[in-house]
Each structure stands twice: as structure tokens, then as C-alpha cells.
């Protein structure tokens, strides 16, 4: 009954109604896509690196320079392990999300015919798996005999490698990965001796799978002497970052320290850009919904003023306050619903545009009902004030001329 009244009256404001429908449609499309992008970034920022992040600190230096200085690395590691609270210390390359990575595409056969997707290189001195908190879930870990130097092109000489489960399943689906081989050049192959649950590479790119890494065993060598990683208790992190940097500076006053901190800081740094984009999108969404709500409220207010006489007549003819209230609420519901219907089309169009330009996945359908619910609620909240004012119009208005 109510809906028929509302529908009958709507064409009297055809243009304004269409405008509001369009506005809601655009807002809906932007809202759904923006929330989707925010969610994507948040998912990215939540990535599991596979290491025990809260127990790690690092100091990044300029390294020891020439190969002849490699014994200095061992000296530095011994000294770092001597600090009270340092459980273990290693020199390594390829800490997850450190904003740099060496990537390679290994071959899976000796004739170099089958090539794997890009893999991030991780390498460290004895004990680095334990320091990072990586546990071997299949096969074995590195033994002291496995650690060796690097060749002229900085590839590890040690012929063994450990891979994360994700990579093992991709390269040898349904097979036992232990004993499988990968080639980094025709003459340099590595045999898989173990599998770890997960390890993420140093730098994420859209075309790289984050969890595809290969872990190598190296002795202290000049080529990978820049990054010291230590395992400590969470409460000691701040103190030990300071003390370990001071210690290294004391051991070698010419050493340059490029960066230091807890792993948590490094990780936050890595995602700072994503975080700021997410906040910006959120701010725009909130502003947009606010503007839309104020627009709806302003317009509804206008219509109430314009229809005072009609409201009065309806009241005089027996309509209750509740009827008038429902009338405006139903009207708003219908307009917003129209906007949502058009908005669904716009949302898909916008998502298509974004997937073409920004390598964004398809928008999951679940965003549509959630977005619709949000706009319905906002519409109802915006119209409530004007609708209450309308229901307060006394019937006597009908008898007065303007």
C-alpha cells in the first residue's frame, strides 16, 4: 500500500531522483572497489614470513670488503654472540621483506629444458635456520659439513639446498622433494635435502610468488658479509640493537652501519607505503559517504518543506504519524535501492578497468551485499531526521493557505 503511494509520487521529481540514484551508484562502485583494494593491502601487510619475527634484530653494515677479510666476519659473529641476551648470531643474505633480493629461475633438468618460476635466494652462515626460527618439516637441516664458500658469480658452492613446502609442491607435485635437483647454471646443481614450512623472499613483486625461496648454506664470505641477524628475547630487542651496533663499530671503526633495528621495524618500513595508501582510501571513502549522507538528508529536508501541505492533507484524511514516517523511509529505500542496482553494474565496470591497469584480482561477490547494506543503513540514517520532522507536521496545515 505504502510503496504504491511512494512510487506514484516519485515521477514528480524525476530528475532529482535520477541524480540521487546516480550519485549512490557511483558512491557504491567506488566504495566496493576501494574497500576491496584496502583489504588487498591489509592482506599483503599481514603476510606470514615464516620466521619468528618478534625475536630477531639486525644490523646492516657495508661488509668486510675483500675476500681476504672474511675471518673478520667470524670474529664479529663471536663477539656478537658474547653480548648478554644474544641467543645466536649469523651473517646472512635474503631476510624476508628487507627490500632487496637476488632472484633466479632454476632449471629442473640437466639439459636446461624446463625452467621453474622465479625463486628468491636465501643464504646464511652455520645455524641460520635456527636463528630465524625455521624448522625442517621433511628431510634434514644443514650440517656443518654442508657450509661452503661462493664461486666467482656469487653462487654458493655447497651442493645442497632447502626449499619451503610451497615451492616443493609447485616444482615436484605429488613427489618426494628430497633428492630432487635444481640447476642455477649448466655446471652448478643443488640437491634438495630438506623442506621448511615457509620462508618469504626479500622483495615482493606481483609476478613473484612470495613463498618461493631457496635456502643455501654458506661459510662467512665477503660477498655476503653485510647483514648480521641475531636471535634475542623480545624485551631485549631495543637494548641489543644499540649494543650490537656499538660493538661492531668498536671492532672496526671504519665500518659503516647502513641500518639497524628489530625485525618488526624493518617489516613495518617495508609496508609503510601500502599502509598510507590504505589510510588515504579509507579517508576518501568516509568523506564520500559523509557527503552522500548529507546530500540525502539535505534533499529529504527540502522535500519535507515542499510537501508540508500534502502531508497535512494526508494527516487530516487519517494517516498516522507512523504512516508519514514510513512514507519517507520507504521513498529513501527505493531510491537507494535503485542506486545500488545501477551501482552493481558500475562496480563491475570499475573493477574491470582496475584489473586491466593495476593487476588487481576480480572483486569477490561478497562485497556487493555488504556495500549495499552499508548504503541502505546510511540512507536510512540520513533520512530519519527529515522524516521525523515530516511526521510532526500537524493536520491543521491542510486547512491553511500558503
Amino acid at each position: 500500500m505504502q510503496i504504491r503511494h511512494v512510487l506514484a509520487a516519485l515521477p514528480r521529481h524525476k530528475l532529482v531522483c535520477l541524480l540521487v540514484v546516480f550519485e549512490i551508484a557511483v558512491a557504491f562502485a567506488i566504495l566496493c572497489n576501494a574497500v576491496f583494494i584496502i583489504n588487498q593491502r591489509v592482506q599483503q601487510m599481514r603476510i606470514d614470513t615464516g620466521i619468528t619475527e618478534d625475536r630477531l634484530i639486525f644490523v646492516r653494515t657495508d661488509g668486510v670488503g675483500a675476500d681476504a677479510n672474511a675471518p673478520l666476519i667470524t670474529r664479529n659473529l663471536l663477539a656478537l654472540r658474547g653480548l648478554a641476551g644474544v641467543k645466536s648470531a649469523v651473517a646472512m643474505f635474503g631476510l624476508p621483506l628487507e627490500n632487496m633480493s637476488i632472484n633466479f629461475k632454476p632449471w629442473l633438468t640437466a639439459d636446461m629444458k624446463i625452467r621453474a618460476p622465479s625463486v628468491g635466494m636465501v643464504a646464511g652462515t652455520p645455524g641460520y635456520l635456527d636463528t630465524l626460527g625455521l624448522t625442517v618439516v621433511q628431510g634434514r637441516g644443514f650440517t656443518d659439513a654442508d657450509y661452503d664458500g661462493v664461486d666467482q658469480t656469487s653462487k654458493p658452492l655447497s651442493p645442497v639446498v632447502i626449499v619451503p613446502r610451497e615451492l616443493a609442491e609447485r616444482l615436484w607435485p605429488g613427489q618426494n622433494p628430497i633428492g630432487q635437483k635444481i640447476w642455477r647454471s649448466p655446471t652448478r646443481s643443488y640437491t634438495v635435502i630438506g623442506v621448511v614450512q615457509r620462508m618469504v623472499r626479500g622483495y615482493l613483486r606481483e609476478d613473484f610468488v612470495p613463498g618461493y625461496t631457496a635456502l643455501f648454506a654458506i661459510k662467512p664470505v665477503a660477498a655476503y658479509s653485510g647483514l648480521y641477524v641475531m636471535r634475542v628475547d623480545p624485551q631485549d630487542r631495543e637494548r641489543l640493537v644499540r649494543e650490537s651496533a656499538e660493538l661492531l663499530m668498536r671492532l672496526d671503526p671504519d665500518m659503516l652501519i647502513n641500518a639497524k633495528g628489530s625485525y618488526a621495524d624493518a617489516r613495518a618500513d617495508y609496508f609503510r607505503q601500502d599502509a598510507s595508501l590504505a589510510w588515504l582510501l579509507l579517508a576518501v571513502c568516509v568523506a564520500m559517504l559523509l557527503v552522500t549522507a548529507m546530500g540525502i538528508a539535505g534533499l529529504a529536508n527540502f522535500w519535507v518543506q515542499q510537501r508540508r501541505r500534502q502531508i497535512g492533507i494526508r494527516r487530516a484524511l487519517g494517516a498516522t504519524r507512523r504512516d508519514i514516517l514510513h512514507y519517507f523511509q520507504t521513498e529513501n529505500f527505493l531510491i537507494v535501492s535503485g542506486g545500488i542496482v545501477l551501482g552493481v553494474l558500475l562496480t563491475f565496470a570499475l573493477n574491470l578497468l582496475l584489473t586491466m591497469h593495476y593487476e588487481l584480482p576480480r572483486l569477490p561477490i561478497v562485497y556487493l551485499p555488504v556495500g549495499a547494506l552499508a548504503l541502505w543503513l546510511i540512507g536510512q540514517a540520513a533520512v530519519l531526521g527529515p522524516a521525523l520532522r515530516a511526521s510532526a507536521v500537524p493536520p491543521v496545515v491542510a486547512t491553511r493557505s500558503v
Partner: protein
Amino acid sequence: MFSYYLDLALRSLRRNKALTALMVVAIALGIGASMTTLTVLHVLSGDPLPGKSAQLYYAQVDPQDIKGMQPNKEPPDQVTLIDGLNLLHAGRADHQALMSGGSVPVQPEQSSLDPFYVEARYTTADFFAMFDAPFLYGHGWTAADGEAKARAVVIARSLNDKLFGGANSVGRTLRMAGTSFRVVGVLDSWQPNPHFYDLNTGSYAYGEQVFLPLQTMLELRLDRNGSTDCWGNGGGGVGSILPSDSCVWLQFWAQLDSPAKAAAYKEFLVHYSQDQKALGRFERAPNVRLRNVMQWLDYQMVVPDDVRLQNGLAFGFLLVCLVNTVGLMLAKFMRRAGELGVRRALGASRRALFAQLLIESGVVGLVGGFGGLLLALFGLWLVRQRPSAYAALAHLDLSMLFTTFVLAVCATLLAGLLPAWRACQIAPTLQLKSN
């Protein structure tokens, strides 16, 4: 007439303050958001060397082995050392430079300063003339100096201020990476944005402090930054190990003063590739590219995706704000049908009414635009607080200031057009009768 309409507009706007405020705020928010992001986009997609960029070309050849070859695939983004040196020594362009980036430790003579790292550019003699780098003191090194692996260095003004107190330091000695270099020149403040000649080291707000001859760097094996792509047996590039000949890690730029010369140079690159294939070094059919600065920046998609995304979103928001304003304005004008009817009946033409209503919407646009400008200034301040490298560049220039106002007034006039036209449509008698 204009002042009368203006007076009418102000009266009408004052009559319904909340509604007017709503329209102004909506416009201001939309303009503020879109101008903030547009300014960032404008700054980031600017021409780093206006007037010169069209003559500077980036050369690409394809030295990769036959494995993984696909038709129409782009050649590598950089060149190998051997190809770079070959092109350099061929000397077919008006100017040419081969370069790569890195960082070197500076060991100041003053004991009060600790050693520190500076960003370095390893390049060849023509670099400074090609890129119009302004010298404060001295000049660059000569090609002969370069070939002789001279221990010569050109330093940036900021480093000169730090080490030599801003004095003319030409002829002074600078110790870097355990070697003594002679300062031959000091550059005045110079930081092209984007950092077009090498995008691997960061695209924005990146400036080298020292410039060294490439040949000297090769001899001393100084540290390199940037990207290295290898194929086949290629590798290296860590620490003091130079990348092998099947790795690309250098940039080659050529200055070609006319389009005819550029065409001839491209031809030369094809011939060069054919020669190298005949020699057995190249395995693929000639696959060359020669892009000028703006084409290169475009191809490299140097403007971050996030910035484009933000800009698109902000303009979507502006659209919502404008539609909102159209709706409110329409409702408002229609409600004044009676008043407009009286004016029509008293002899005002439709055109006069239309002008009056447009002035009213123009006023809203102007005030909204001003609010938007303030919001944009605030927004840019916020952007500058962000951690990205380009953040510091986000400033409103004169052209963007002008654009803001044009955008605001045009947007609101456009928004006022439909409501004004609608309000002028109905016959005066009807409007008088309706109440």
C-alpha cells in the same frame, strides 16, 4: 545587471544557510581531494629536462641467447658492459654516455667527520654536457681522462658544502674507498625529477653526490647499486665481483639533435646487432629500441600505480560531490519556481533568469573552490609527511593553482547548468498558479 544578479544570488544563498554550506563543503572536499592527487600526478609525470628531453635517447639492444626468445618481446632494459663500450667508442651520436650507479664510502680529512656513504654515478665524459648539468666551479673530466682511468671526481654542491665549506674545491683531494681523487668540478644544485637516466636506483628525489669516470670504477671495482639481469651462465655483481658479459647493468644515452639523426642512429643499432650476430656474440635477430626521455619514462611506467589509483579515486569522489551539488541545486531552484515565475511574468527573459541562476551556482563554485584550495594545500602537506621518496616534491605550482580555480568554477557552473535550465523551462503562468 551582473551586480544585481550577484546580490540576488547572495540573498538566496543566505536564505538557506545549511544547504549552501552543504554545497560549498561538498565542492571543497571534492576539489581538495582531486587537486591534491592531481598535483602529485603532475609533479611526478613532469619533464625532467624541458627543452632538451626530446633530443636525448635511450638505446636498447638484445644480446640475450636464443633460449626463451619470443617474437615482439622488448629487449633488456639496460646494456652489457661490452655493448655499452662498443656503442660509446663508435661515437655515432652528437653526445653519448654510458653509466651505472653505486655508492662509495667517503673518508673525510677532517677528523670531526665520520666516514659516510654517498650515492655515486659512474659515467663517461659527455654526461654533463648531455644532461645540462650546471657547474658551480670547474668542469667535467675529458674523454681522455676517462680512458686513462683518471682519479677525478665531480661532486655535488651539498657535498662541497659539507666537506669544503662551500669554497671552490677544484684541485682539492677527496678520499673515497681508500683512493685519493682530485676534485675537477662542483655541480650546482641539480636533481632532475624523475631520475630519468637511471630508474633502477629510485625514480624520484634521488641525486648522486659524486660523479666518477666509469673506467676508474671498473678498475677500482667500486660498489654498484641498481639492477642486474643475467641469462645463460651470467652472474656476479655482488661486492667486488663485476657482472659477467651476459648480464645487463648499464645505461646508454645518446644525444641526437634531429629526428633524421635519431632514425640514422636506430639504423646504426640494427647494423651493430647484425655485426655482433655475425661475430657470434648475439644469437637473436636485431631487436633494438631508441626512445627519447618522455617515451622512456612512459615505457617504464615511472609514475607509481598507487598515485594513478589515488588520482582516479579522487576524481570519482569529485563526481559524487558534483552530482550531490546538482541534486541540491536542482531541488533548490525548483522550489523557487514561484519567485522565478514572478520575474518571468514581470518581463525577465529566460536568458536573464538562466544567467541569474548560473551566477548563483558560480558563487557556490568560487567559494567551494577557495575551500578546495585550502584543503588541497592541507592535503599536500599531508602527502609531504608520507614516507615515499616523491613526497617531498608535492608542492602546488602556479599552473596547478590556476587549474584548481578553473576546475572548481567550471565544475559548479556545469553543476548549475542543468538545474538552471530546468528551472527556466516551465511557463510563467504555471509557476504562478502552482502555489
